[in-house]
């Protein structure tokens, strides 16, 4: 069995005595899209940050592409990428320049060709010379996505990537992510509050509550387990009844 691309094993994380993750384990293989779901404070963003090497767990093992993101940080970072609705690129620079800089940081071969292909795919072709600060929030989100695909990553961490997109663009983004998975077998770890999107995109969903994994399976399996018709129903049940 091939080694998973992303794995957390028995991870515990506490902040000021409050346990944000409590023995959390999961793994994702090549080409898999895994959604981390749960109410605010469930621990999904903490898990993402641990995988990114931004938080050192108090206990447990973290592997990304078979390596520790804490011990072999730059080997990992060259082969993964990240996008978040809460992270931006400098507003004073144009779309093209922002992408060009990150293409250089990632040592992308033929950066011009790569940038052209990405901006066209993400509907940013006409905005190449526009300043990032002049873009709408949806356009900025797409620019962040373009940045996250520059280095043809083997793993992408997506923190609510479609948070500010209109339904049409959000759908195009989902299609793009699916295409990336199909063409290159990219692994994606995904957090979102858009349950319909998670259902449409993720192969597997992990529900977290109070730092613990309370359910794992396909969206259909999760719905069945909680006796709900939609993932949104599951989310509401977990949030309001505090299922553990």
């Amino acid at each position: 069995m091939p080694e998973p691309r992303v794995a957390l094993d028995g991870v515990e994380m506490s902040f000021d005595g409050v346990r944000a993750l409590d023995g959390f384990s999961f793994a994702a293989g090549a080409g898999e899209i895994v959604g981390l779901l749960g109410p605010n404070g469930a621990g999904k963003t903490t898990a993402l940050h641990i995988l990114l090497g931004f938080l050192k767990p108090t206990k447990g093992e973290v592997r990304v592409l078979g390596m520790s993101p804490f011990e072999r940080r730059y080997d990992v970072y060259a082969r993964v990428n990240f996008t978040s609705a809460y992270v931006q690129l400098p507003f004073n620079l144009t779309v093209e320049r922002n992408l060009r800089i990150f293409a250089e940081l990632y040592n992308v071969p033929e950066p011009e060709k790569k940038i052209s292909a990405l901006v066209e795919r993400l509907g940013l072709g006409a905005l190449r010379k526009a300043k990032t600060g002049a873009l709408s929030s949806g356009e900025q989100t797409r620019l962040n996505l373009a940045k996250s695909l520059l280095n043809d990553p083997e793993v992408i961490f997506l923190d609510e990537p479609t948070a500010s997109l209109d339904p049409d663009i959000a759908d195009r983004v989902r299609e793009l992510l699916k295409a990336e998975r199909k063409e290159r077998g990219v692994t994606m770890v995904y957090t979102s509050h858009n349950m319909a999107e998670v259902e449409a995109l993720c192969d597997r969903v992990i529900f977290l509550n109070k730092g613990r994994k309370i359910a794992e399976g396909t969206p259909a399996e999760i719905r069945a387990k909680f006796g709900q018709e939609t993932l949104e129903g599951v989310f509401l049940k977990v949030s309001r009844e505090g299922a553990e």
Partner: protein
Amino acid sequence: MVARYVVLHFRSPARVMDLFFWPLMELLVWGFFTVYLQRSLGGTPTLLSSLLFAMVFWDILYRAQQSVSLAFMEEMWTRNILNLLISPLRTWEWVASAYLYGLLKTMIVAAFLMAAAVGLYALDPGSLGLLFVPFFVNLLLMGWALGLVTAGLLIRFGHAAEAIIWGVPFLIQPFSAVFYPLSVYPAWLKPLCLLLPSTLVMEGMRAAILENAMPWNQLGGAFAMNLIYLALASALYGWLLEEGRATGRVVRLTA
């Protein structure tokens, strides 16, 4: 990264003012003060030159510190810091780019101020000659070290520490013998003042202008101290960045 900082700088009117407008305002204040001293109190031309050089030197230190701090701060303001931290960009590469950006910015400010001082107040650049270069290097190194410490404190304390960027140079200015000699300080304070490379640079500059002396001791002492301080600042910055990564503090910088 250096090209990026340069483009970011010149796209921002506020940053361009850092290069020309604010240094010019400072020069005008001290320039007119020296004119007043000369006309009313009979200051000697060499004393007046030393005051103008002191002003230029202080600005070199100040801009060098700010460049390094602001290079980091810029990433916090634009919420780009996580993008950089998960890229293959090494910490030393990031710091080196901030240093080079600082060097470029400081050279522009120094050249502009010297040209303005010569044009407006007839400052004789030959009164220091090539000694200007080692003085400049020492102030640049000290500015880099201070900037790195400030950047480290920003990682540790986040946006709450932003005021430090502007305040740190003014914490050391009173003890750097910038506009007056070391001899005016009380005896107990002098040893502390001498722990600042800036004090040795200013004393060396005055010795060169007022006494025509070659300030090798001051230059050598300042250089040695700067190497130690730069090493300590690098270690502190590296430790605070690693600690910020491990505790998730760097993530909160984007909030």
